């Protein structure tokens, strides 16, 4: 649900990074934070456990500039990936405008990817959203690891609706901005349709 503030001439959009535990959602946000001009970003907030596992969410506000005279603000959130945090994960999807699914390319994590994607579909639908309709991008992360499944095979197993798909190595930033740009574009294009 985009928040359009005509008084302040601002568009505020919410993007959620979803995916199984340890797939690299927080790493995506960390890279974006590190590489963004300080004037364009707010504080990166991580509600994490002592062992740096996301407990509730990470949050990064980004000001991307103006489009058609409106300042565009993107609020990036991650969810906690671990299965037992489902109640918290669901809360973060409230009012979402676009979703990035970060898949872990390691062969041993394929089942976890599939399970998390199903969980995303269900949690979105509980909020009245349809994954088939909402702006959605797939990221195949950890493609540099020796046990990585090929992008073709991952796409075969995880593609939902022919969504834009990016290979990534998040700690090095490969694919990170392409993913963000793609989802932001889909969200803004959605405004055009309304």
């Amino acid at each position: 649900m985009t928040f359009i503030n005509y008084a302040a001439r601002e568009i505020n959009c919410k993007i959620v990074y979803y995916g199984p535990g340890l797939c690299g959602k927080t790493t995506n946000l960390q890279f974006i934070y590190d590489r963004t001009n300080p004037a364009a970003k707010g504080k990166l907030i991580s509600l994490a456990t002592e062992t740096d596992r996301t407990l509730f969410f990470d949050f990064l506000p980004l000001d991307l500039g103006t489009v058609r005279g409106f300042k565009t603000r993107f609020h990036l959130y991650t969810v906690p990936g671990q299965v037992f945090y489902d109640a918290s994960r669901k809360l973060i999807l409230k009012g979402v405008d676009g979703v990035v699914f970060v898949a872990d390319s390691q062969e041993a994590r394929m089942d976890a990817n599939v399970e998390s994607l199903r969980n995303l579909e269900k949690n979105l639908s509980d909020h009245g959203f349809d994954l088939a309709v909402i702006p959605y991008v797939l990221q195949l992360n950890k493609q540099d690891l020796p046990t990585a499944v090929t992008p073709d095979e991952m796409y075969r197993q995880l593609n939902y609706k022919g969504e834009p798909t990016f290979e990534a190595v998040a700690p090095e930033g490969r694919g990170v901005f392409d993913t963000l740009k793609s989802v932001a574009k889909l969200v803004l294009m959605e405004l055009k349709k309304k």
Partner: protein
Amino acid sequence: MSDFLLFDEEFHQIKDVISRLHKDAQSKVVFIVDKNGQQIAAQGDLETLDTTSLASLTAGNVAATDGLAKLIGEKEFPVLFHEGEKDNVYIAIVGQRVILVVIFDERSSLGLVRLRVRKASQELERVFEAIQRKIETEKDRTDVDSPFAEITDEDIDSLFRE
């Protein structure tokens, strides 16, 4: 789900209500956030405050508490209060949709804040009902183009240029 649109008229009404609340409750800061974590308006000593982070964390806090309420069979907890050594945070849900936050210190008191918030909440509820009606009307209008109808790929690409 329809977008949340905020127009000049209602924005100023909201600003008026929270300015008055800020003064009457002798608070440090008053702000309004929607339940998705977007800040709608703020009033008070804002220079030293990261209001964007505050908005997001407040919404997270309310969302978690809502979840908690449902687990024990309550509809919601309409009021939350956090007491600190110096500063306190009073959070009230307005019209089940937006969150009103008041930060105050020893110059005020919980009783005063509670009293003033109750009155302001009623006024805000009316404003947000009016906004909702306006959004519904706007949705059905076909005679006015949205400012975003003409967004091009070029516009969007320009946002990501260094």
